[in-house]
């Protein structure tokens, strides 16, 4: 630097300024691209992660494993309470199991009487959590299933019991699961047993909020929350959790899925049923044209 003449330095400085300005402009353009064509930009992000993360897995896996072992070790500290808790829960489970078996038998009898045909059972594909979102502002995880495993955007992710979130962004060998706790997550739900519809909105806390409840008087803390299947993204009747009433007089949901020890998740294969477009052909022979009402609508509800 010291050897250069003043003119050289000035020249270099102005070039530098131009380059700096160009960089800022370029960043602004990238932001515009992200803002305007968000799905494509996020797809780009996923494909970059898809290239990088599987290569880091060999280094990441042992560290993740060690942190889990440490967690397990810490939980030995309260092993006695846990044991008591499990005993109590087991007792309750037995009662429920009895009830479930009885209901199952009754349901089978009724179905038999009605000759009902049930929809095909949902099938699962299981994946391992690779990474989290890398930021405290986003609640999501990357799993080791992608396009090659037939994963599609929008499919539901569950742990053994409850709904965790949905697939959002699919790469070749990995895909991102956005959790119910993320502030971008909105899921249409049904509150059982009052059958009210609501929207479950994440807000970066462990208890997502129930919004747009039709009649809050009919909702009790402890009510079961399941997916409603509206919008055709999720299958209906996946368990989400239980309603709780927090001190700010809002209904929130205690999630059944256990986020704290998440290693594996199940992705629900689901393709929404085809809408019925041709109502008059369903039953009986073709009617004469003048008898057919032009605006007949049959809503294709699922579940």
């Amino acid at each position, binding site marked *: 630097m010291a050897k250069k003449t003043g003119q050289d330095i000035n020249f270099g400085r102005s070039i530098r300024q131009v380059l700096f300005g160009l*960089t800022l402009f370029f960043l602004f353009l990238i*932001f515009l691209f992200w803002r305007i064509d968000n799905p494509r930009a996020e797809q780009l992000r996923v494909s970059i*992660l898809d290239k990088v993360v599987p290569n880091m897995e060999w280094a990441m896996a042992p560290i993740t494993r060690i942190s889990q072992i440490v967690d397990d070790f810490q939980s030995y500290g309260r092993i006695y309470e846990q044991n008591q808790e499990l005993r109590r829960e087991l007792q309750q489970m037995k009662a429920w199991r009895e009830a479930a078996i009885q209901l199952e038998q009754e349901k089978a009898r009724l179905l038999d009487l009605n000759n009902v045909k049930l929809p095909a059972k949902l099938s699962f594909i299981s994946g391992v959590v690779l*990474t989290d979102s*890398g930021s405290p502002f*986003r*609640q999501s995880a990357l799993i080791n299933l992608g396009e090659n495993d037939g994963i599609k955007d929008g499919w539901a992710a569950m742990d053994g019991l409850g709904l965790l979130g949905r697939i959002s962004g699919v790469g070749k060998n990995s895909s991102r699961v956005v959790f119910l706790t993320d502030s971008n997550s909105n899921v249409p739900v049904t509150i059982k047993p009052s059958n009210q519809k609501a929207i479950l909105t994440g807000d*970066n806390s462990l208890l997502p909020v129930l919004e747009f409840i039709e009649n809050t008087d009919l909702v009790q803390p402890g009510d079961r929350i399941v997916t409603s299947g509206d919008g055709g993204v999720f299958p209906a009747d996946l368990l989400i959790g239980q309603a709780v009433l927090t001190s700010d007089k809002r209904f929130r949901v205690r999630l059944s899925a256990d986020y704290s020890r998440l290693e594996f998740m199940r992705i629900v294969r689901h393709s929404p049923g085809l809408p019925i477009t041709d109502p008059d052909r369903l039953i009986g022979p073709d009617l004469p044209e003048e008898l057919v009402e032009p605006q007949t609508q049959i809503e294709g509800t699922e579940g």
Partner: protein
Amino acid sequence: MNDTKLNLNWLRQVVLVLFAFLIIFYQLIPFSLIPGELPAPDIMFCVVCIFIIRRPEIVPFWLIGLIYFAFDIFQSKPFGVWTACILIVTEVLRANRDAFRENLFPFEWITISMVFVLALCANQTFLAMSIVETPPLFILLWELIFTVIAYPIVLFIITYILRVRKPALGEFDIKGQKI
């Protein structure tokens, strides 16, 4: 003489990039998937500021841009905004770096903290203006507090363990830079 110095800087930049990847790597490890966790300090910001005040040639703006853009990608942030904010404030720091020459550490600490606040505010304002959902304020506050606390620690490590100091004091040990 000139040649070896150039090589050294090149090596330091590589180490800096590796360090950035280490940070990304650490953040991506799924330690806990429970929401409401406290954020980590922005160590990279401390490192970049320390180098800009002491050895600005090690951290040219394009390197800062590249590192922070990688952060944007891997931390699921909006593309480019945080990078641009960091670039602007570090450029302001760089232009005024003579002011830090004679001054003591408390002055530097306060200034850097203010600069970080400025970057956060700029980021938040710009996101709010373009109607993008902004991160909750209390998390940002924690990030700010942790970063401010981390600054002297990072500075200590860089000055006394890696031996990067303010004035041009002779040669540098390559081994001293290795992390």
